[in-house]
């Protein structure tokens, strides 16, 4: 976690890859909200290069990351807010710019009044699936729980939560290499979640859990979307379709431009 929140600084936000490919509207709304919160604010849409690094192309990664760093510097960003846990870790390790997780930030800047308690009457109980890459980032995990509480949703903590969370099956670029294994991991993860309805804060995790047989929502779906009730179906697995994903990614880019106007 970077320094204390201060309105003097120029904050930036990057949605990452899987989130804009999944839900461009949520990206736009988040940016609108942050832009209204911080007097000095910039937005960037670009990959952090984690996949390049994960397959082992370290030199190429350095080159690509330098591009992102240049964008951040160019936009005068002094503290980068991220919604993706891989971005969080990648920036933490490779960037000269301090990085803040959106989930850890939210309790510090306060929840929008009109959204507080919006799901107080919902009968659904969510299990939280924590991202395994940030299993040791307690502040980030607590922030997610704080948001669920602000929204008014009921939450069940499974045995495999937080530090003891299990992989969704997506990590390590395994899916395109060994899809059978990845599918087994996805099913196994769902089996250990104890409840059918799951809330995640990574769009790739969401896609994996759907493949594993659970119903899963991204926490931004719950924040910006309609109230969910027991028995509701979760949004479809958009990331399963490359075409839809890239169309969305493009939509997100347009949405960002629009939201920053």
């Amino acid at each position, binding site marked *: 976690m970077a320094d204390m929140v201060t309105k003097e600084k120029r904050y930036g936000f990057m949605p990452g890859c899987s989130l804009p490919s999944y839900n461009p509207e949520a990206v736009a709304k988040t940016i609108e909200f942050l832009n209204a919160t911080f007097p000095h604010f910039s*937005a960037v849409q670009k990959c952090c290069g984690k996949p390049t690094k994960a*397959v*082992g192309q370290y030199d190429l990664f350095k080159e*690509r990351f330098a591009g992102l760093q240049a964008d951040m510097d160019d936009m005068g960003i002094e503290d980068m807010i991220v919604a993706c846990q891989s971005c969080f870790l990648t920036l933490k390790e490779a960037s000269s710019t301090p990085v803040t997780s959106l989930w850890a930030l939210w309790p510090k800047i306060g929840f929008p009044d009109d959204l507080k308690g919006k799901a107080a009457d919902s009968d659904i109980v969510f299990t939280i699936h924590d991202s*395994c*890459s940030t299993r040791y980032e307690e502040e980030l995990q607590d922030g997610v729980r704080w948001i669920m509480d602000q929204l008014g949703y009921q939450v069940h903590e499974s045995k495999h939560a937080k530090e003891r969370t*299990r992989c969704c099956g997506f*990590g*390590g670029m395994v899916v395109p290499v*060994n899809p059978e294994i990845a599918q087994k991991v996805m099913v196994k993860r769902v089996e250990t979640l104890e409840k059918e309805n799951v809330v995640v804060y990574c769009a790739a995790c969401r896609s994996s859990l759907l493949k594993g047989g659970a119903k899963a929502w991204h926490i931004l779906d719950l924040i910006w979307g309609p109230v969910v009730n027991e028995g509701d179906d979760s949004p479809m697995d958009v990331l399963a379709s490359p075409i839809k994903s890239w169309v969305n990614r493009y939509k997100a880019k347009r949405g960002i431009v629009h939201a920053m106007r």
Partner: protein
Amino acid sequence: MADIKFSDAVIDTAGTVVNKCMGLEDAPCMSACPMSTDAKGYVNLIAEGKFEESLKLIREKLFLPNTLGRICAHPCEAKCRRGTEYGEPISIAALKRFAAERADDESLWDLTKADATGKRVAVVGAGPSGAQAAIELARSGHDVTILEKLDVVGGMMRVGIPEYRLPRNIIDHEYTYLTSLGVQFEFGVEVGKDVTLDSLREDYDAVILAHGAHKGSIVPVPGHDAEGVFSAADYLREISLTRSFPRAGKRIMVVGGGDVAMDCARSSWRIGAHAVVQCSLEDDETLPASEEEIREAKEEGVAFNAGWGPDEIYVENGRVTGIRIRRVLSVFDASGRFNPCYGDETKEFSVDTVIFATGQKVEDITSGALEQKQGGRYVVDANTLATSMENVFVAGDAAGTNIVIEAMAYGRKAGLSADRYLTGRTLDDGRDFSREFSYGTKLDVPIPEGTEDLPRLSPNLRDPRVRKRDFDECDTGFSDEQALKEASRCLKCECRLCMRECVMMNEFGSCPKDILDPLVNRGEMDPLLAYSCNGCDNCTIVCPHEFQLKKVFVGSRKDFVAANRGESPMKGHKVIKLHQLLGFSKFFTTKIRGRKK
């Protein structure tokens, strides 16, 4: 792809894993067994109701499961995690008896033998060590003859261990395995008297001395040479063979605190004693006898005087009339040497018989040709049991063992050595000596979550008032229900905790040590392994050593890329390549500096 050179960090991490991973370590019960019997394995098969499979697993190592199930001194139980953790070890030996009673059948006996070699081996003694040596040699195709002084098989199991603990028909039946294997027996032949070792060495290609320790010892207190003083060895042998001991009286003092003393005391009731008293240098806390034996002796009314030593045997007309015992202040001196120190307090008992259960010695049957040390044990090579005579090996108590299962392990060892000698190989050819006896295990894992402290099942013992008057078996054995319940307490000690977490490693081997062995020993790793790791760290979290396997799997990917002209070696990663190109392309990226507010 070019040859891969894995980076030092990868090799170092993998090396540590292969060195320290406990995935292939044996459970404490198994490693404590001198015969390496897979106790965890057979106990769990019982728990699953697979009695025949359990029995078969036992028979892979032990030819007399029904015998050992009753009398094995069970070093496995001393190491059982339920014992070291809660003081309630699994009744492993009794479960072995159960499996044998429930499922043993001659049709399951493995009688496979190698082709006949034409070599002849003489084994002296039909105790467990001689029997095991004979089995080993017969299986290797040699012609084996056991020469036995007595007319019965079993050795000390037959003439030491009393019948009420081990019915004789069980020994006889289990020994028919040897006859089925083609082992010959010559009974009533005393080596050293009826036939010399030298002539055996002439007539046979190799000789194994497995004649045990049958020479009783008597402590030379005043009166020790009176009529009515006997050694445990003589006393128990005669009772075993005849169910009587006419030279004994009705009031018996047993001197000694070990299991042999308990056997003497309890046997005394069965031949009609009216009073049985015990005394031993060791006090209640340090009595060497097993807890079960002490408890059962007490139940049968043996009066204990632990911490009292024999002072003088009273004699009238050459016969024992009583004994005075004296309080022991300490058994060992400051330097740890055996040097009993007595106080002033004494007690007297009117007895007509004194039995000394104070140790047995090995008789020399080589006319001094082989050197002996303490207790008459022969001087042997500890690894091979070879002696200074090139075709003579020693097994069992004659070489220093103390219990049946150890004697068997020495029998096997001597057999393996003799086989090598007979086939012209060096004695250490292809052997891992550390696995020929009990060994240490590195296994050190946390007790499984949610483990309850469940009590050990007590044996089903007959009423002591009844059982002490006959030779029938005291312990009637477990019922199916009891055995299942007792076997289910097993903690199934193993590590492999990471294997329960990780899906992908299970596709590549049994544990990290197994999986990374090719990398460490041959510099090889399947790229599919490296690229199947999600990098989630779930292995690290549960690993008692907190090994970071990710450092090997994900860490090696840059080495694969370097060997593959900068690209991932995995075909599937073409998608990622495209994905990344788009993710960084102008079309899908943007950057905007917000307006001043």
